[in-house]
């Protein structure tokens, strides 16, 4: 029982950064912009988040620092890809390369330092319920926030006028523009939202997952978040399933290493990456009839005024 509870808790913790980052990117992509710089925004968010928490002693301030850092990174992307109509794939790669360097620079002074990680909820009575108590009532704030975030994004995309307009920009920017919607401004906001989420997801790692900062600690999670958006067919509900599945793969391979199965640890560590490839192939194949991606995803739009 205790082991099962521990595994569920670990899966939730491993899934949360993926879920937050992927939710942000989903909104960005729904507006028609492909920002491949999630990894770069995340790693800068991790460095700035840790710096904020270490300087002020507050995890909340750290999370804010992460959000601000991610948003500022995404603004560079918006200026390039939307303002100057540069190829989005290349710009996203540049953002990741820049982010890896910046985070090393910012985080260099903090390697080896520790902070008090985010506190977990504790409601007397409820949290002590066996098996489900800690899973439901004993998580840190990020986990609850990530659920609220997905629900909020679902509500925004499918139940509000603004969400409909955002999706219209992603499906056909020429029509949206002709109807008088400010396509580039809407996309800029969507990119900023994606950046804020990526920054927060990055900050989660040193603030809650491990209480210290290591250079390169995102370890490809930004890229896996991008794959999750494809996995979800650009739908928030499926994103939750995907994120928790990937969290489960990550945790299972860690546990399998502990059980001493005769498989070298490196092969187990490669599992999440291999799983990503397999899932991408299976899904893309199943969808051969027609793509569910936003029709204008990744295309350049220059308004003709």
């Amino acid at each position, binding site marked *: 029982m205790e082991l099962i509870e521990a595994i569920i808790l670990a899966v939730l913790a491993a899934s949360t950064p993926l879920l937050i980052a992927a939710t942000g990117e989903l909104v960005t992509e729904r507006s028609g912009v492909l920002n491949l710089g999630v990894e770069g925004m995340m790693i800068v968010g991790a460095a700035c988040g840790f710096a904020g928490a270490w300087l002020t002693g507050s995890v909340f301030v750290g999370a804010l620092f992460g959000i601000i850092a991610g948003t500022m990174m995404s603004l560079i992307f918006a200026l390039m890809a939307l303002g100057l109509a540069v190829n989005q794939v290349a710009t996203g790669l540049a953002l990741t*390369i820049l982010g890896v360097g910046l985070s090393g620079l910012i985080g260099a002074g903090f390697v080896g330092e520790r902070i008090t990680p985010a506190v977990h909820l504790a409601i007397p009575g409820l949290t002590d319920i066996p098996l489900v108590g800690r899973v439901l009532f004993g998580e840190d704030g990020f986990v609850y926030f990530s659920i609220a975030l997905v629900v909020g994004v679902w509500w925004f995309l499918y139940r509000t006028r603004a969400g409909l307009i955002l999706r219209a920009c992603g499906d056909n920017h020429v029509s949206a523009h002709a109807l008088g919607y400010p396509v580039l401004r809407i996309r800029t906001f969507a990119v900023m939202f994606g950046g804020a989420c990526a920054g927060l997801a990055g900050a989660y790692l040193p603030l809650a997952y491990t209480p210290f900062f290591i250079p390169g600690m995102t370890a490809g999670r930004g890229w896996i978040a991008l794959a999750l958006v494809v996995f979800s067919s650009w739908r928030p509900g499926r994103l939750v399933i995907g994120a928790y599945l990937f969290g489960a793969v990550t945790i299972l391979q860690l546990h399998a290493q502990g059980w001493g199965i005769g498989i070298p640890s490196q092969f187990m560590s490669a599992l999440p990456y291999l799983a990503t490839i397999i899932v991408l192939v299976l899904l893309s194949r199943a969808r051969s009839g027609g793509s569910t991606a936003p029709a204008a995803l990744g295309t350049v739009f220059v308004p003709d005024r």
Partner: protein
Amino acid sequence: MQLVLEKRAERSGTIALVSPLIAIGLTVVTMVILFAILGKNPLLALHAYFIAPLTDGYSLQEIAVKATPLVMIAIGLSLCYLANAWNIGAEGQFLIGAVAGSWIAVKTQGTDAGAWVLPAMLVLAAAAGALYALIPAICKVKFGASEILTSLMLVYVADLFLDYLVRGPWRDPNGFNFPTTAEFDPVATVPLLIEGGRLHLGSIIALLVVAAAAILLGRTIKGFEIRVVGAAPRAARFGGFNANQLIILTFAISGALAGLAGIIEVAGPVGHLQPGISPGYGFTAIIVAFLGRLNPLGILIAGLFLALTFIGGEQAQIAMKIPLDVTKVFQGILLFYVLACDSLILYRFKLSFPNRQVASGTH
């Protein structure tokens, strides 16, 4: 006030030539600001980065050594990008090439194997790199899976595989438990061009690759097809060019070149297989490809320039305690400016003042 882009009637040839230079200039200005923020003397730092490495023979050789893998990988990537196929996993193909070639070196260690060893290593590394690159290419062509994500995921897999080999079966028994293979035998080592120097045969191979790419793109029908498929996919379809076949081809070539670069690095400057053989060559090569305008000669120059930043970064770290990560920041900023300046080739930037236009209309 608003920034507005206006499409040029035709692409500007002048700007196409000077845009990399503008980008480098803007990057240097940004770096001066960054150095000032870090509390370092910007002029001394710039000197350490860009001038000092050019003043002694050892550093000059070292630049050529660093440029060798960058140029070879970037040439392959440029073919992919021209064909609009996004291989960003060259780092993984580099590592797999290094592993495959090292296999022969490790197996023939201490035997009396002859001069065939090094050529066999090069061939096997290129083949392995090509096969590894074909995984994302085939996933793309057959199943429509994003080659960007799959090729990137395979970088992590290759990294872990190499790690497993040098910590497990291939570890040097006399290596004090360090994760490395034994030093390669002389027959498994890339020969030096100057006795006692650093420059090795790999640099010559890189120059041959540049020449071959220039011929492929400029003088052959395949090269023409690659450029048309990327620049005008509809025209290419009408022309009967097979886009999928070109994705496979360009991925295979770029994987082979990355793999070759990998074994040359291991059997050359490094001398044995160990983790961390690449300071991110596969990713820096993306910058080289764009800075070089996806043109073979441009890539050669861009590769030398980025190699200079690697060496300059090391010298600035030793002389002025400037963190090595500054080099990565520099490279990232450079790519941004290159892409932004490239936008000038197709568009004209204009500042528009919407309110004033309305006002002048009423007069």
